[in-house]
């Protein structure tokens, strides 16, 4: 099943249907983690990039691949290694013997979904190659600017263990991820079902796209029109301010924007054309936590956000 299943639903309903289809599709591969799946889908609808941050082997890459395969767009995967160069990602100008001109050989970043696997194993210089594409949806090589296709989403994974062999992401880069998601281990019953599913062929092999590129683009436009009342905007601002007052490094305005976008996408997934405070609350942790440097060593990023949600008046 692809698109245009329903006749003439309102844009909002169509967008919700698309989102729900993707969620359902991914859930056929990924056991449990339905929250995370919704998060990653809403991130895509909001036009954001996602950082999957967890121990190895919990299905980060599988989740990213499932999402990529659910969309009928181009999908590229880059395995980050210490010797990876920026040009390996963005592409390079190559001299064409025939035309006697330099030609741009596009790199793997030119795709609708880019999976940057183990992003923290490459040095910061290489990591930075993603910056422009993630933020401005374009790539500049040798002074030439090349737009990346739309929709465009970077899904990066990083291992949070074995930190000695990795380069931690620079703050500027981290800030460009709309969300950081953590999968965590599956529950006992979930793990049993996971094992059950892989018997006789991995389900991802049979996964087919459920949304076209156009549908995603349309859904993204719907998301951006979701109503955000001033009281909601003030609520978001208050949360951001709280983090600035209670952490060494608080949430940037980019973070606030990300939170509002994510809340809009969440409302869309929920079938609403307006944002409620609960949308903000359910998106706050994943959109804000990774941008924060807590004051005390004992404070985790998540604690600061939870405290903010508990103390800022809705």
């Amino acid at each position, binding site marked *: 099943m692809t698109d245009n299943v329903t006749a003439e639903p309102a844009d909002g309903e169509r967008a919700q249907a698309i989102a729900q289809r993707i969620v359902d599709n991914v859930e056929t591969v990924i056991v449990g983690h339905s929250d995370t799946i919704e998060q990653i889908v809403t991130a895509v609808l909001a036009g954001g990039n996602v950082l999957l941050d967890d121990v190895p082997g919990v299905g980060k890459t599988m989740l990213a691949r499932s999402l990529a395969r659910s969309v009928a767009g181009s999908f590229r995967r880059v395995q980050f290694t210490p010797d990876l160069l920026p040009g390996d990602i963005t592409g390079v100008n190559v001299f064409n013997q025939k035309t006697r001109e330099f030609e741009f050989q596009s790199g793997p970043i030119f795709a609708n979904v880019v999976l940057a696997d183990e992003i923290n194993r490459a040095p910061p210089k290489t990591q930075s190659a993603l910056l422009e594409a993630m933020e401005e949806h374009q790539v500049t090589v040798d002074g030439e600017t090349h737009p990346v296709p739309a929709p465009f989403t970077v899904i990066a994974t990083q291992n949070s263990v074995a930190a000695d062999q990795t380069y931690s992401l620079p703050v500027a880069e981290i800030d460009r991820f709309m969300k950081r998601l953590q999968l965590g281990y599956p529950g006992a019953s979930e793990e049993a079902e996971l094992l059950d599913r892989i018997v006789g062929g991995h389900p991802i092999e049979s996964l087919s796209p459920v949304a076209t590129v156009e549908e995603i683009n349309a859904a993204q436009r719907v998301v951006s029109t979701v109503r955000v009342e001033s*009281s*909601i905007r003030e609520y978001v601002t208050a949360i951001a301010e709280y983090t600035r007052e209670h952490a060494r490094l608080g949430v940037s305005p980019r973070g606030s924007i990300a939170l509002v976008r994510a809340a809009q996408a969440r409302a869309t997934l929920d079938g609403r*054309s*307006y944002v*409620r405070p*609960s949308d903000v609350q359910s998106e706050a942790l994943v959109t804000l936590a990774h941008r924060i440097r807590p004051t005390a060593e004992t404070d985790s990023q998540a604690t600061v956000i939870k405290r903010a949600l508990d*103390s*800022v*008046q*809705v």
Partner: protein
Amino acid sequence: MNDTTRQQWLCRALVVTGLSILASSYLRVLYTAVDIDGDPRLFFGLVAGAVIAGLIAGRFVPISGAIVSGAIITALGSMLYISTIPPEYSLSLTISGLWGDTTALLTGMSILRIINAGMWAVAVAPIPTFLVSYFATRRQFGYSTLIGCGTVAFVVLTGDISGTDALLGVLGGVFTLGVDGVERRGARVMKTDRVLVVLALVLVVTASISIVPGGSAPLGAGGSTGSGETVEASLTRSDDELSVGGSIKLSPDVRFTVESDRESYWRIGAYDRYTGDGWVRTADTHDPNDELTGPKSGGSKFTQTVSPRATLSVMPAAWRPISVSGPAADATSFGGLRPEGRLQPGDNYTVESIAPRHSPRELRNASGSYPDDLRDRYTQLPDSTPDDVSQYTEQLTANAETPYDSARVISTHLKEHWNYSLSVPEPDGQVASTFLFDREAGYCTYFATTMVTMLRSQEIPARLAVGYAPGQRVGQNEWVVRGLDAHAWVEVYFQDVGWVRFDPTPAEPRQQAEQAAIAAAREDDAANVDVSSSDPNETDTPTPTPTPEPTASTATEAADQSTATPGDETTPETGPASAYRPEAFANASAAVSDDDGGSTVELPPASTILFGITIAGGLLALLRRWGVFSGLRRLVWLWNLSRSDPKADVAAVYDRLEYLLTREHRPREPGETRREYVRDVGTREDRRLVAIYEQVIYAGDRSDSLVSEAIELFKRRRWTLVRW
């Protein structure tokens, strides 16, 4: 200035206010003494100096130094006081004398009776004032209050402080401690509502429990008549104080009968110190001159036998007694007699008196110069006596060349131009000036007091004498004297002659008033109104015995006797006094303190207003503590749903719903969305209301039907408040 500092300053200002009220309550008492007989400027100077010294000492001097300073101030004050005491009173400076004085003061002797009360007050006032100021500067408000209240307690024991002032002082102390306590605990000044409640409680309790001395006074709501007290009570109490009050009543009960060779005023005693609103006897206990002596000018000797018909604490006798036989008695410095105990019916006594004889010529020729101490004592007037009394008298007596002429003129003038009335409002301020300039009527105490004031303003020694008018003559040599015969008159001193009686009270109206009272009492079948002249035991008979002298005959008698001078003073001048005679009723006199006519519609005194405000404030504070005001405000708020724009309306409805839910369950957590909140604690309707809220507020749906639905939902919802 930040909030905490402002709090502290506010607290301090309130504490200082409380202490000022406390200090002013005892200073007022002391000032009364200074005003009557002292130097107010010195007083205020010393008090101000004590305050300033306390402020400075509190900052720099440790506690031991302060005690030493206090001792020094005390010593200086004592020296100041002792240095001004007349030498003949040095007797009272012995240790036992001082001890006796202290005991007497603490058991109710007025400080006004101290020989040199004004100077004494000047000497005493700085001591507590310094200590109060000192401890206040050191922020030891507890000690300040203790000392202030101790001083108030002292003047309470001496009986000089009015209930109002005492209550004010105590309230000031309570207020100080309360505010100080509030501040010490770091609470907000608004918490002083607790203090206010306590103050109001103190007021209400003291005002409603009559056992508390002066309890009913502060509210100034005294009844129009004092319950049982009569005119006579104030004049004939063995008390050494006499206040001039408002309206009075006449007691028709028979007090005693007299068998005498001649008619006379039955004198009890005299008062020398005028306080502006009353009279005090000074230092009666230590007067070395207490003895019975005959008049200097000589006169005719006669005897009286007095038969008490009721319990008497005084010994009426004709002026001037030279010997007494019967129950034990003392002489007083005013030439009067004082029984050692109470006289019961049957305690008859016989007094031998010499009626002074002096002619107008003698009196006219009397020298205008007097011994210093006598002049000082009997021309004393409070400093606050208005000058207009003096000016008025001066004009009146412009043509009088001798003190005698002045006395005659004044007496005649008062008699002719003022009316006699028993119901008069209590004087506000000085008796004499009130009576002279604001009133047209009064009773004998007013007349006599005014005359003494006028004479003293002209440096003529005079005093107020009290006793009984001759009473009803029931036989050749027998008089029946009733309570209403109590009377006050004036005695003027003439050099080489002695004290001579003048009576400025118009006789006729006084007698009429007294007649009326007797007649009324007879009609009421009151006991004790009459006594059969032949049967003294009949006093207890409740039936109206035939009166020895019908009213008509007494009137005749009055007329007959109007020409006769009352036995005592043979000077022609006493002619007016002779008008009294017959029946006289006591002219009333000193009104007992709290009989106040209350017929005026003037503003209540400041203290009453202050007490009213305090009680009202306490009530408000109490209501506020009980949350009555916020409750009412909430109720109005809950029921007042005005429509403006949909967003505001729905938000207002939600706010009210949340208030109800908060009362019924719990407040909404800060991070809790409205939806979560009502899902947790609300009803189905509440959830619907929140759904509407979200639809209107977040989705921007402004349809009127939604708003109306929300309002209707809430209108049903809010009644749960009542059930709750």
